[in-house]
């Protein structure tokens, strides 16, 4: 396979090296002459010191026979243009763009870039997996060691589908209000909790595990 990599930063450098080592034909384009020479010293003469956004430079690097163009510069607008030029001007079958701002993803897809790689989104996804999203949120300390807390109910919350009475909250804590569809309301004896509700409760710190268990689910074993 012939892969044209544009952008000789860390990503472009390692990508080119790996592809080359696994037997693919690779050309790396890096517009900064100094950086291009430095990479060429390390991985050989497969580096073209030209701007991959320039149509004529892409042509010189062999874009018209590339199977894949990977645009991995640090600038989203450059990566978009490289892929679009590759696709429309050189009929490259597969274009891959690094997207730094995840909000640009819909535009890139819409404009025909085949694959998007978003480091920002990958790291975000990984962080969100590690942090429990739904926890008791401490809103405010009240007098006498009481605290005001908020819980966002999910489909997994034991409280969903039940009323306050059915929940049998421990003594010493009380559900104060409920925010549903962005409207705050009182919790009456008939109110059935739903997923998506935000439940505001007041209680002492020692009630928190029980509140957590009913509103969010059992605490994970530490």
């Amino acid at each position: 396979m012939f892969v044209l990599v544009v952008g000789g930063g860390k990503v472009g450098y390692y990508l080119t090296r790996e592809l080359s080592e696994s037997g693919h034909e690779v050309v790396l384009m890096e517009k900064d002459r100094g950086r291009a020479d430095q990479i060429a010293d390390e991985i050989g003469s497969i580096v073209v010191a030209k701007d991959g956004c320039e149509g004529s430079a892409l042509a010189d690097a062999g874009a018209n026979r590339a199977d894949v163009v990977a645009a991995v510069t640090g600038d989203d607008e450059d990566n978009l243009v490289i892929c679009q030029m590759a696709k429309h001007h050189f009929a490259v079958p597969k274009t891959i763009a690094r997207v730094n701002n995840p909000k640009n993803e819909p535009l890139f897809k819409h404009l025909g870039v085949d694959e998007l790689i978003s480091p920002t989104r990958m790291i975000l996804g990984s962080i969100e997996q590690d942090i429990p999203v739904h926890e008791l949120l401490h809103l405010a300390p009240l007098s006498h060691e009481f605290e005001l807390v908020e819980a966002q109910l999910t489909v997994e919350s034991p409280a969903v589908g039940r009323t306050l009475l059915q929940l049998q909250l421990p003594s010493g804590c009380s559900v104060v209000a409920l925010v549903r569809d962005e409207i705050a309301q009182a919790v009456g004896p008939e109110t059935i909790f739903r997923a998506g509700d935000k439940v505001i409760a007041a209680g002492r710190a020692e009630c928190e595990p029980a509140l957590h268990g009913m509103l969010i689910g059992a605490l994970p074993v530490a």
Partner: protein
Amino acid sequence: MKAVIVGCGRVGGVLAAALDATGHDVIIIDLLTRSFDRLPATFGGEAVRADGTDEEALRRAGADGADFFLALTEGDNRNIMAAQLAREAFGIGTVYAKVNDPMRAQAYAELGIGTVCRTTMMADALLGAMKLPMGSEPSVRAGAEHDHPPIGTAASSGHGEG
């Protein structure tokens, strides 16, 4: 008419002032506040410090519902991306990007955004001044008509342009 200009350089600044003076609503956007020093004291439009390649920033700046969108920064690719956002995300009808690489100017005109190429424009102006024949490439190209639906509509997902 409502005009959005991205890039308050010499050209952007002069155009913003001219459109404002002739009674249009002008929003001019630049990454640097000091670029707005180029605007005359009489300028009555809005000058917004924002990134013209950021959809949300454009929306906050008031790009929705504009009649004209002109991307005139010093970066070809920034202009191309801003113009494509204007066209695809905001559905603005008249969109021009300054693209100084003649090859990109032609390619993007075919893809539906108007392009202005200073390279061919200057070359032709100078050739003309010397009474020599000019190049065959136009310096201003209207964007080709295209019919793909705006971003975010159901039909747009996964739509390549082939």
